[in-house]
């Protein structure tokens, strides 16, 4: 039982790991006890993931030792680490969408019968009871691909639990979750803690880190900055430790545009899934935010603007002139840009170079006699790289070699290439470090000031409050909140996101 075994479950001492000369992890000590939630924070590229990969046996450390339950160990692969009861809930979910929930949970540890056949009854029973243990009821024969993100996350946790892990690493588990889903996840974490498991929690959302952790370790540039009990940190001191900058510097000053400013963009249409009418407009110099719980129609609405369908009797006006947007190509011709949420799937071409990525949607703009003018191309790319301060070694570098933050800037840069008049950003800072966030916020503000209509959909409450001049809240396809200036508070947003008052019907929001 938990109280009989040594309290310190894991101890890593002086871990060093280099890749091609750069020290990703440089002499880091890290430990985790039973019944403890130890958070690991730091900017992207600070070495958190590398440290965890060393723990999981995916990378072999160049130096340093790992002690598990007081004994030194060395893992050659994730299977070995798993056998030592280390489990990892990955940032990018490690589930196979084409397989069922039960299959995903028992994968690699298939329950067999004497005849060598799989025992489906046991697989079903095992997965049902594990999921029940974390308060989820799903038919184990459901295909994972047909589940919403939050439930997939639960299945992922179930998969790790089924391996009877004692030390569980949660590598940014909250990134794809909405706020109430995070609450459910935290209940599970606390329950695991009570059961004496050691938990390592990695997240970019600092409020969450502070709320759930017992201890926090901050890393920066591969080195350990500080390890201390969570109570001794505040969000401000955490950020300062992570980036060496103060919070007040993160969000740019708002424009304070007035209600009678010129209308740049207006939307009026009926959302298809919910059959509700939504109308709104974006004023000059304004950043318009979209909030509310996840999946309340925000995505459909914003995608409709980019010609991806999902909206009937749609009428869009840019600068007072109506435009018809039936597909993304027409949308782009009308100066509409959409920066997608899922940059790995929809945003970048990972094996293409930085240059090719940035130019992908505007190749036609730089042609002479049907040939691409390469000098011109290289010049505009240089300008964009400078403007967004994307950190690259060369324009010819493949996009997949960039860090998450730089990749996100690349996606944004691609859309800024054709000087859009309307820019829609979906979760622009998802999985991005604080320093990059700051740059992206500044960029958003710059765009608004240059007279671009900017719309931002984000599930990060701080972002809505810190960046947007006006916030529209949606619930079940209805516009239930329109908050402006000092009225944009967490409380008001939450209130509006559960309200069922239709502001469009009541003609209170234009």
């Amino acid at each position, binding site marked *: 039982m938990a109280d009989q075994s040594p309290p310190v479950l894991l101890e890593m001492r002086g871990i060093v790991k280099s890749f091609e000369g750069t020290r990703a992890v440089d002499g880091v000590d890290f430990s985790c006890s039973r019944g403890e939630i130890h958070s690991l924070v730091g900017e992207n590229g600070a070495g958190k993931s590398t440290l965890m990969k060393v723990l999981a046996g*995916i990378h072999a450390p160049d130096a340093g030792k790992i002690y598990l339950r007081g004994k030194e160990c060395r893992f050659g692969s*994730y*299977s070995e680490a*798993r056998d030592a009861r280390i489990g990892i809930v*990955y940032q990018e979910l*490690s*589930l*196979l*969408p*084409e*397989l*069922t929930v039960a*299959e995903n949970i028992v*994968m*690699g*540890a*298939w329950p*067999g019968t004497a005849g*060598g*056949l*799989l025992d*489906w009854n046991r697989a079903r029973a095992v997965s049902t009871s594990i999921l029940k243990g974390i308060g989820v009821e799903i*038919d184990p*024969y*459901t*295909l994972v*691909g*047909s*589940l*919403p993100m939050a439930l997939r996350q639960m299945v992922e946790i179930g*998969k790790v639990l089924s391996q009877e892990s004692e030390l569980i690493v949660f590598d940014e588990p909250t990134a794809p979750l909405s706020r109430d889903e995070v609450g459910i996840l935290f209940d599970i974490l606390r329950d695991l803690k009570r059961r004496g498991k050691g938990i390592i929690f990695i997240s970019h959302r600092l409020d969450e880190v502070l709320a759930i952790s017992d201890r926090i370790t901050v890393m920066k540039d591969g080195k350990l900055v500080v390890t201390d009990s969570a109570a001794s940190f505040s969000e401000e001191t955490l950020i300062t430790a992570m980036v060496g900058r103060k919070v007040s510097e993160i969000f740019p000053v708002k424009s304070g545009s007035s209600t009678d400013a010129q209308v740049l963009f207006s939307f009026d249409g009926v959302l298809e*899934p919910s059959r509700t009418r939504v109308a709104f407009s974006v004023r000059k110099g304004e950043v318009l935010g979209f909030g509310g719980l996840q*999946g309340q129609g925000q*995505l*459909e609405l914003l*995608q409709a603007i980019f010609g*991806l*369908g*999902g909206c009937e009797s749609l009428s869009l006006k840019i600068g007072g002139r109506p435009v018809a947007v039936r597909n*993304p190509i027409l949308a782009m011709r009308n100066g509409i840009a959409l920066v997608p949420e*899922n940059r790995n*799937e*929809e945003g970048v071409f990972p094996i293409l170079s930085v240059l090719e990525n940035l130019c992908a949607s505007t190749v036609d703009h730089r042609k002479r006699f049907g040939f691409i003018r390469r000098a011109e191309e290289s010049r505009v790319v240089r300008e964009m790289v400078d403007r967004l301060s994307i950190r690259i070694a060369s324009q010819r570098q493949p996009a997949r070699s960039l860090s998450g933050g730089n990749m996100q800037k690349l996606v944004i840069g691609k859309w800024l290439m054709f000087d859009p008049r309307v820019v829609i950003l979906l979760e622009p800072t998802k999985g991005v470090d604080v320093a990059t966030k700051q740059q992206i916020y500044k960029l958003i503000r710059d765009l608004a000031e240059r007279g671009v209509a900017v719309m931002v959909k984000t599930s990060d409450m701080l972002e809505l409050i810190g960046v947007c001049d006006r916030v529209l809240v949606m619930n079940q396809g209805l516009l239930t909140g329109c908050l402006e200036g000092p009225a944009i508070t967490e409380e008001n947003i939450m209130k509006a996101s559960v309200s069922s008052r239709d502001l469009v019907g009541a003609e209170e929001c234009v």
Partner: protein
Amino acid sequence: MTERQRNLRLFVPVYAIFLFIYLGACIVEPTFFTWNNNVNLFTRITPLIIVGIAQSLVILTGGIDLSLGASIGLSNVIAASLPFVDSPANIVLWLVVPPLVGLCVGLVNGFIITRGGFPPLIVTLASGAIWKGVSLFILPEPGGNISQGIAGTVTGTVFNFLPVPLLIFLAVFFLFQTVLRRTAFGRSVYAIGGNETIAFESGILVSRIKIGVYAISGMLGGLAGMFLSGLMNSGDPLVGEPYILNSIAVAVIGGTSLSGGTGGVVGIIGGAYIFQLLNNILNLLAVSTFYQYVAKGLVLIAALAVTSSGAGIRLGSTFRRPKKREAE
């Protein structure tokens, strides 16, 4: 969507099309519905089903086996070069050697692909060329001999009623249906095709499973080659050539996605029938060869459009987010 619903979506269209073509043929051409014609169909379809299953397994892992034709040819000429006097020892030899030859071809493919990390397309193309050369060296012209007893059994019946080819393909079909659905090996095949990295990190021995899949593919090629030798009473080094692409076509019509991870062998019999029925009908109707090719191509594309629509959703979703999932 549950697994059962997905499986229904996978094989219902295939068998619906198969029934449609089959019944259509019976109406248009009454001789089609004779027992003799059906036995003839069983015989022709057996190697197609066997290699279709082989190819499906490989494609499910995200690979492809272009050396299937060569493993059929090689095992075929070796079967025809074995001693052909009827004796128990010779019969055992004939039963064991060709599949073993195929197994070796597959093992070599699997080792090169997993150890070297090379693309399966090129590795199997290359090894296919090598083994085709070896087959031509062993038996430059179609010929050789199969013992009368074996040849009689392959085309014969059991209990004077059940045609042997029917039994063979049903046995192989049910065996692999079970392997895919009920064994850890089978589920690992899907996992690897879904995402190799995730499969590896979930503790699946990816290389071992992949080598196994190519070995099985080769072995099934050997089985098909052996069957063909008994059927034709001789060997032909190039007998396997048409099966290279036909096996891929049958696998895809049978519902297996070329990108791996989805599908299975449930639809294989339907897929093979659709493929073979076209030949059969067009011949019975005495359609000229030119039109036969055109008609076959068109019907194949139509069948593909219906049966592999599940694979198409994948492509579409790269641009349009799968909204319906959130609604569910």
